[in-house]
């Protein structure tokens, strides 16, 4: 065992870290319990609580920097205890949770402010902010828990908030269905997650992060593999990775700020957090790492391919999120130094993807909720701030130097080429290909939306820029999109070393500079191709297409597969059982009951007049009791 993980008790300012969770939680409770009485000011309370949490998060961050042991825990009360099992309602503030807290509250605050404007005309705005605050509180529990049960508590809490917000406009059947789908697919991952917790307890007798980290070396490799696969399945559910990917694009049924905060910047990165937090488990088994890397590489390609074929601005961005989180999974799967790189990409992605979604929301706001990019075009003239901020985020995500995405994505591609065997080529090339595809679909999206001829429907006369309460967050996120990657790629991995360890990097199969040049080249090719194809706009009607494009339009048949393999047979099984339970089991048991009661004729008679039958049953019972006791009394049995 190299070193023992030990958490110091929280003191000073850090002993108030429970407030990080409590502030948004109390605000959510107030907004949801007060009802319409809070309609006038509810949204401001919502913003205020998240803003206050951000300030507290910053102060806590600086307090943590001054600590000798940069892992501080606060056990609030005994949560669940039985026999030798015990977990506390405990929080852990360490470098990894600190960066997540800043991302969640910081970007979360900007999106809250934006939503004040975006949801202004929605009668459910207060309810929206209640759910939004609930989400922030749950997400903070997820990243602040000091044991797996606490993580799971937050994990399910964000799942609930996600469900509530996807189906926020619940009158729309599609929104209700999408919310349910998200919850159900997540539950599959959740079941795997809890089984992993059971396995930890059965094997190690503890589910606290420190206890597990210190004992993980005692596990057999088979158990470690099983444990990791279960956690991975949980992570794929929350993060919309293969095979549990299909819910995420449908989640776009929710209001756009929801897509920005929950389904792009924070919640869907929960899976990456879980794997990074459990790095001691994943590092311990190379087969496990290979599986994670494969899931990441496969998903980043799936997301990018489907993203190229979509016409709904939010769905393109959703598949893009799937693809970008694939890069993060690739990173945490590669392990070693790439853990930190994945986190850097996660943070950078939080900025530019939030910016892209909010930009998309701003476009929809000015275009009567139109989402079809074939119906946009030339919007740069009408919404200049949205155009510029969206443009910067676009350049950031495709990874053009010196913007954010370049610094965060390119190192992951390099790390993929650093694998020890031939798989370096496999995953390296997949990551490069993904970069090219990303450049293609994002450029297509950008060109069709803001440039080329206008293709609007007649009902839109004056596209307009959004009010300042929406554009100011856009500008701030754009600044982040430009600068975050370059600023973070150096210090953040160093900051995360206590949690994720520091490892010497391997030799890449290609020279570092060659990979960089290749990455920039595929980006330029992808972007250039999209520019040439779409600079003059596109047809507004669906075009005939080859097999691959058709497949991509149909989400590579993932939904069709789920429907044929799970949904249809499930419904059939349910119907069959309902039929059988009535006829079979009930009939058989009724038959037995009837014969015990003395023939089915009597049963039928019993059902006719209830008072008489009741009296008769009681009489029979009473007689039996008396007879039995008399029998015993006179020793007929003894």
């Amino acid at each position: 065992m190299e070193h023992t993980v030990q958490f110091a008790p929280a003191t000073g300012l850090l002993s108030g870290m429970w407030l990080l969770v409590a502030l948004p939680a109390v605000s959510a409770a107030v907004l949801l319990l007060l009802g319409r009485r809070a309609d006038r000011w509810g949204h401001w309370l919502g913003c205020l609580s998240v803003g206050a949490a951000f300030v507290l998060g910053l102060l806590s961050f600086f307090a943590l920097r001054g600590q000798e042991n940069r892992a501080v825990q606060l056990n609030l009360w005994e949560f669940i205890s039985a026999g030798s099992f015990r977990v506390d309602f405990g929080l852990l503030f360490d470098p990894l949770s600190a960066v997540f807290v800043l991302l969640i509250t910081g970007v979360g605050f900007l999106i809250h402010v934006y939503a004040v404007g975006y949801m202004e005309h929605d009668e459910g705005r207060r309810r929206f902010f209640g759910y939004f605050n609930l989400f922030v509180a749950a997400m903070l529990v997820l990243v602040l828990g000091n044991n797996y049960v606490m993580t799971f508590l937050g994990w399910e809490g964000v799942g609930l908030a996600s469900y509530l917000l996807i189906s926020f406009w619940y009158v729309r059947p599609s929104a209700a269905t999408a919310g349910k789908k998200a919850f159900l697919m997540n539950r599959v991952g959740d079941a795997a997650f809890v089984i992993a917790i059971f396995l930890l307890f059965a094997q190690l007798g503890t589910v606290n992060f420190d206890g597990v980290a210190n004992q993980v070396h005692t596990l057999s490799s088979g158990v470690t593999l099983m444990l990791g696969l279960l956690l991975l399945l949980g992570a794929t559910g929350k993060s919309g990775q293969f095979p549990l990917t299909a819910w995420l694009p449908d989640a776009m049924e929710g209001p756009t700020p929801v897509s920005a905060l929950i389904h792009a910047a924070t919640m869907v990165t929960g899976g990456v957090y879980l794997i990074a937090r459990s790095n001691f488990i994943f590092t311990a088994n190379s087969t496990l790492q290979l599986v994670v890397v494969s899931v990441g590489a496969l998903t980043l390609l799936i997301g990018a391919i489907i993203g190229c074929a979509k016409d709904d601005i939010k769905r393109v961005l959703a598949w893009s999120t799937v693809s970008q989180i694939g890069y993060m999974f690739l990173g945490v799967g590669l392990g070693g130094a790439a853990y930190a790189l994945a986190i850097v990409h996660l943070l950078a992605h939080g900025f530019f993807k939030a910016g892209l979604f909010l930009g998309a929301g701003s476009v929809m706001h000015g275009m009567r909720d139109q989402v079809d990019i074939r119906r946009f075009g030339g919007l740069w003239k009408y919404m200049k701030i949205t155009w510029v901020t969206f443009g910067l985020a676009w350049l950031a995500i495709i990874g053009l130097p010196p913007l954010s995405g370049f610094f965060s994505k390119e190192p992951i591609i390099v790390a993929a080429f650093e694998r020890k065997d031939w798989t370096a080529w496999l995953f390296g090339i997949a990551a490069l290909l993904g970069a090219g595809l990303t450049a293609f679909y994002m450029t297509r999206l950008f060109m069709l939306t803001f440039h080329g001829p206008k293709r609007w429907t007649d009902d839109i006369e004056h596209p307009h820029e959004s009010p300042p309460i929406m554009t100011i967050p856009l500008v701030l996120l754009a600044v982040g999109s430009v600068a975050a990657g370059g600023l973070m790629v150096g210090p953040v991995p160093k900051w995360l070393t206590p949690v994720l360890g520091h490892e010497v990097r391997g030799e890449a199969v290609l020279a570092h500079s060659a990979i960089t040049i290749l990455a920039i080249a595929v980006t330029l090719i992808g972007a250039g191709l999209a520019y040439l194809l779409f600079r003059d706009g596109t047809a507004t009607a669906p075009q005939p297409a080859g097999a691959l494009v058709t497949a991509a339009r149909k989400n590579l048949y993932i939904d069709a597969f789920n429907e044929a393999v799970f949904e249809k047979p499930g419904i059939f099984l349910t119907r069959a059982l309902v039929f059988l339970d009535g006829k079979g089991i009930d009939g058989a048991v009724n038959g037995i009951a009837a014969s015990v009661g003395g023939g089915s004729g009597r049963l039928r008679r019993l059902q006719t007049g209830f008072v008489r039958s009741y009296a008769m049953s009681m009489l029979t019972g009473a007689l039996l009791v008396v007879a039995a006791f008399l029998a015993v009394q006179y020793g007929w049995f003894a």
Partner: protein
Amino acid sequence: MNFPFLSVLTVAPLVGAVVVALLPRTRPALAKQVALGWSVAVLALSVAMWIAYQAGGDRFQFRESYPWIPNWGVRFTFAADGIALVMLMLIAVLMPLVILASWHDAERGKRNVPVYFALLLALQSTMFGVFAAADVFLFYVFFEVMLVPMYFLIGSYGGGKRQYAAVKFFLYSLVGGLFMLAAVIGLWVLGGHTFDWQALVDANFSTGAERWLFLGFFAAFAIKAPFFPFHTWLPDAGGAAPAGAAAILVGVLDKVGTFGILRYCLPLFPEASRYFAPLALTLAVIGIIYAALLAVGQNDLKRLVSYTSIAHFGFIGVGIFAFTTQAGTGAVLYMVNHGLATGLLFLVVGMFVARRNSALVSDFGGAGKLLPLLAGVLLFAGLASLALPGTAPFVSEFLVLLGSFTVNKTVAVIATSGIILAAGYVLWMIQRTTQGTVNPALASNEGMRHDMSLREKVVVAPLIALIVLLGFYPKPVTDVINPAVKATMADVGASDPAPAAGTTEAAR
């Protein structure tokens, strides 16, 4: 502190029932008020008992014993361990809320209002008795008498096929009761002519006799709980009973089955319990999956909730027969939490049904638009029912699965897949009733214009508060349950397995 809590708690509601029943039929409001006041007084007494109970003290407390039938050694013996205490408390908490929720239920059918509330109080009395009894014969008597008020509540005040449902309920229970009666007599004969629980625990039975006696008790409890495949009476009874009675039926009365297994089957017949555990686990696990699938397919809200309860009883069964401290504690906690969550769910469904005069899912649709608050409470109750973390049922389900995983991975993993199905039946029900476009028939319905009244808010608020409180801080209840479960596991001769890997000092 020698106040005879248990006998007073058993008798007090019965006196109340007589008083209420004697009130003139023409003054229904008075009957309601007296019944409500009485049940609140009983609740206050129960709270005093809860405070007087010493969590780390003797296994059985508040012991009272009075002679009854000396020839047979039958005595009125009452005593409560932690398991009984939490169930008594659950009854005391639920009853005033059920009375308040049933305020207008009896009037609708132009039936005798005072008798309805008298029946509820009488039911409370018998339920107190069954959980407080520490004499096997006394338990048996309460176990059977308990049927009578419930029979009339379903048969006289229910809806739909109420007479069929009531008779079916009665017959199933009676058949189970006969098995138990045979076993009770056998116990007396073989156990040294006594009905005293402690004396019978100390008695020794031959292996064969023990197994037969176990089966006699188990049959009664498995029907009562109910476990697959003895469950088919419950959807009929739950579907036909008035919502308040259904909440009591499923929330508390059925728990006598699982309570009986814990109090009688395990301690009295430890060898047989271990012998039959695989069978019981199999039935329980089938029940979880089977009933959940059936719940998905239901089109009647009350039947749907009944089926979810059968699935939940499967979880309790797994928890009991896993024989570990975690699973056992989880099972008992599940009995409490399920009473709160399913009780709430039944009451809320009742509020929907009262407005629409129909329990059919297809008669709703988009109700959230018309009744946002009530729809929100339905969602909350549904989420508690699917054991979402942050609600009380999560803690119990987690402990059941955790504890059973340490000894039987297959059972635990199959049972865990039940949580996916639970999300399925709850969310699909929510979607079909409250979401989507508003059903035109609803929009023109007079009842659907009124969201929750103050009375209805008062009914649900304490349950919601308890569910959230116990979801984050279950310690007050687990502290009471834990010692009793440990003692029961010691009775059955089971001990928790040690961690398979790991170093003991690092496990703290």
